[in-house]
């Protein structure tokens, strides 16, 4: 065999070795897959059991992949019983209102904090930052809300989450990524500060608005402790509170309903996570989008 042939053979062997190493599905990979499938199942299976049992007319302890005696009575009960439906609507109303208020205030604040030639800008941002470090605490806050007449009212949820300084800063970072040239061009065309805000800045920030809006919505929808602290009137509580009272304190006259207690409980759990479960695929996308958009600067 001559030298050239030898070299060719050698190179071929090298290539084969390389391919083998790249695409080798080792024992390590195999174990890794198995372990992660188990982890995913640990997360998914409890939720699956909740979904199945919410549609099963008798409470069973066993894990089933599909309801044995299918029924939607659990959900029907929630949406036809005033005691349960009222909290659900309270949750919807406060979440929608709070999200809009939160978005309005954080876009306004974030936009103003970006005006670097405005006198007093750093004082204003200091004014906001201080609240991230110092707070009055649970009791002084309660006393203030009492004076404002918000104790025993569901609007406490809107007021308390109406402004989140962290979200405001995220919004400001996002606005910083909008090209200055666009705003300059609008200014030259005679657009006012308000006009620039509504016609240029906001339409360009849809991704950030979606992701920050979802952050507000999840916070308000999921808030249980505020209701626990401030509200005792059963007409004003939200669904999270109702769920907790129902399951932990067993405070349900289940005999009044035509479904088994467990079916009702599991259906309530599903209702308490339903809105975000529906929004989750979008939420994840917008979360990533918003964060990336905020990070890139001109």
């Amino acid at each position, binding site marked *: 065999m001559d030298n050239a042939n030898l070299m060719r053979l050698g190179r071929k062997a090298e290539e084969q070795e390389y391919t083998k190493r790249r695409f080798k599905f080792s024992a390590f*990979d195999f174990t*890794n897959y198995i372990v992660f499938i188990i982890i995913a199942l640990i*997360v998914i299976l409890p939720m699956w*059991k909740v979904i199945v049992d919410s549609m099963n007319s008798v409470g069973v302890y066993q*894990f089933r992949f599909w309801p044995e005696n299918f029924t939607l009575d659990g959900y029907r009960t929630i949406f036809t019983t005033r005691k349960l439906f009222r909290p659900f609507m309270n949750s919807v109303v406060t979440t929608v209102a709070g999200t809009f208020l939160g978005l309005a205030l954080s876009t*306004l604040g974030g936009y103003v904090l970006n005006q670097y030639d405005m006198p007093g800008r750093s004082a204003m941002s200091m004014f906001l930052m201080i609240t991230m470090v110092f707070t009055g605490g649970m009791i002084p806050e309660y006393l203030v809300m009492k004076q404002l007449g918000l104790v025993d009212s569901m609007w406490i949820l809107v007021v308390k989450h109406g402004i989140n300084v962290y979200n405001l800063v995220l919004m400001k970072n996002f606005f910083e990524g909008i090209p200055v040239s666009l705003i300059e061009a609008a200014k030259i065309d005679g657009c006012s500060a308000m006009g620039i805000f509504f016609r240029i800045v906001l339409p360009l920030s849809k991704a950030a608005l979606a992701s920050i809006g979802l952050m507000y919505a999840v916070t308000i929808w999921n808030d249980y402790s505020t209701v*626990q602290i401030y509200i005792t009137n059963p007409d004003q509580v939200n669904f999270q509170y109702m769920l907790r009272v129902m399951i932990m304190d067993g405070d349900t006259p289940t005999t009044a309903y035509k479904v088994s207690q467990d079916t009702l409980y599991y259906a309530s759990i599903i209702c308490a996570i339903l809105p975000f479960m529906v929004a989750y695929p979008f939420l994840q996308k917008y979360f990533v989008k918003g964060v990336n958009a905020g990070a890139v600067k001109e």
Partner: protein
Amino acid sequence: MSIFGKKPVETLSNGSQVNQKSLKMRIWNNRGFYLMFLPVAIFVLLVYYWPMLGIRYAFYSYKLKNIHWVGMGNFVKLFSEPDFWQSFTNTLELSIIKLLLNTFAAVLISVFLNEMKNMFMKKTIQTIIYLPHFMSYAVVAAIFTLFLSPSSTGFVNETMKEWGFLSSSIDFLHSKSLWRPIFYLINMWKETGWGTVIFLATLSGINPELYEAADIDGATRLQKIMHVTLPALSNTIIVVLILNMAKVLNMFEPVFVLYNSRVYDVSDVISTYVYRKTFLTAIPDYGYSTAVGLFKSVVGCILMLICNQASKKVRGRGIM
């Protein structure tokens, strides 16, 4: 020279011109922005600053409408209360162990998820393990209360009886010895997935040349994890731990949704103690509750300063 509307202009040495408006002029020009900031300022004053004034009640006795000065009286009472010290040590123990467990699990999962080559699989698993983060503590507590319940439909008890591990049902959440492990497990179930976000972001920033170099030197997968991946993560791990240490005393909801009067000894934390003293007492002393809150904030502040120092030592800059 300068008449209305004409801007006074300063010429720099290089010939370019800079607007030199008077302060009054600049304020007037930005009037729209001040107006836009007004609602934000009102809200922040109302929700954040006004309650800060209420901190003064820590030095008063405040029962019903009756407010009078007691000086350090509330703090003297506080320090002699065994229930308070119980809640203080519980808070430190519960939240620090929770923090360490969650961080450890998140690091472990991120490192091995990073080894997964199939992108579809990786994305799917990420999507799944992020899910529980978006459920409220009330929902998570509800799910696990039902699963762990000693009734005939409690999944854990009945399954373990069926498999012969148990002879009679255990009331998990009412048991002093089992409450804490269950608390840690439930918190790991809920927050570990979301905790990986920051570590995975760090891992995606590792220079691939480092892995190629390790390949050429003949390193195995585990060696690459030990000598490339983990060192790259160490800084992030320290940052996460330090940032969270500063707020370990704030824990309320995770405990509140799971605890009950039978396990106060092992589960009562400062915030739940304040809650009970204020809202479950017939005639609450708001002054005393505020004092507990103030003490918590002061200790929290000290912890934050310590963490800031630690952060400066480790990374050369503070956390703020």
